[in-house]
């Protein structure tokens, strides 16, 4: 199938089916620092689980099955206070509703096989979307996408197990490792803008983020993301209808 994909001469090498090891190496080279960051964040999550008086094994179990960092941190507090399952469901729906937009542009068509695709959808966290969606799909092999996701998934689960076992006492000394994610998204924003210098999109996104931050300041930090993503998508839909009006090409 790759042979039929029309690509520029420069991209031809990247498009050809790479050996498995090549995909893993490419994923590790590009995402290794994110994997390491996931381990570090997972340790923090594991320590939080035991700090709430919950059994340590719950940390890797939640991280391996849910694999959605933000809602996991909220879930731990709810489990510790035995919150009703309905409240857990509504919270998950609100916090994770941003995922409704990722699938629209995630390059799933590059992933081969039912199992690979099912896993890729399951493991479509913020970072997985951010690391793949901004790139030209032809430059990404399916194996590289899946390895990128699996590395984050495994790192997050392994870190959670370690944090659960070691607890907050051993690892409480170093604060601020979560800045890895801040730096990651800053870098990805720079790269995405460089690939397509689109000031209008950046202004819309910044405006939606700012408004969402102000509008949800009373509700806690978890509410900002879904509100910002939803309003941003609404702006893009409006922009599409304005710019594609008949007669404006």
């Amino acid at each position, binding site marked *: 199938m790759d042979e039929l994909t029309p690509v520029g001469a420069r991209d031809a090498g990247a498009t050809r089916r790479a050996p498995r090891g090549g995909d893993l190496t490419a994923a590790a080279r590009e995402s290794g*620092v994110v994997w390491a960051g996931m381990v570090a964040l997972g340790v923090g999550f594991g320590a939080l689980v035991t700090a709430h008086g*919950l059994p340590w094994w*719950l940390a890797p179990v*939640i991280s391996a*099955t849910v*694999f*959605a960092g933000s*809602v996991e941190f909220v*879930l731990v507090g*709810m*489990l510790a206070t*035995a919150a009703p*399952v309905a409240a*857990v469901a509504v919270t998950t729906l609100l916090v*994770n509703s941003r995922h*409704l*937009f*990722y*699938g*629209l*542009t995630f390059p*799933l068509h590059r992933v081969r096989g039912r199992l690979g695709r099912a896993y890729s959808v*399951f493991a*479509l966290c*913020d970072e997985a979307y*951010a690391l793949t*969606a*901004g790139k030209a799909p032809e430059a990404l092999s399916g194996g590289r996408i899946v390895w990128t996701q699996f590395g984050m998934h495994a790192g997050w689960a392994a870190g959670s197990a370690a944090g659960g076992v070691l607890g907050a006492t051993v690892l409480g000394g170093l604060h*601020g*490792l979560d*800045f*890895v*994610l*801040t*730096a990651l*998204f*800053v*870098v*990805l*924003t720079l*790269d*995405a*803008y460089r690939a*397509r210098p*689109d000031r209008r*999109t950046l202004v*819309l*996104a*910044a405006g*939606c*983020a700012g408004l969402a*931050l102000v509008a949800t300041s009373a509700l806690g930090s978890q509410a900002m*993301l879904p509100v*910002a993503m939803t309003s941003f*998508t609404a702006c*893009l839909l409006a*922009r*599409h209808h304005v*710019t*594609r009006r008949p007669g404006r090409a």
Partner: protein
Amino acid sequence: MPEAPLDPGYAVTAVAVVVAITVTLRALPFAVRGALSGSALLADLGRWMPLGAVAILAAYCLSGVDLTAGSHGLDELVGVAVTVAVHRWRRNALLSIATGTAAYLLLVNVGLPT
């Protein structure tokens, strides 16, 4: 601290509900995408969404910064500035993230020289 030990049945149910909702939210747009395939709308979203989404995620990461206490956001400002500067200089994501995070960790855990 919980008053009573965790009920395993409750924990399994709650986690299963979270997994089911999360997977459904992740899978739903792919069903819609089939209907939109080849459309101008999907092409536009594909052009605009990735940049906006990562910018919003970056803003979200910084949204918890307390400007009224601690370093008043100076640690984060320096961390972001170092990340941006190194990235503009070398265009190496790994190096930019590592350097920016190291600068931030240094400020938060050791502090500015006084």
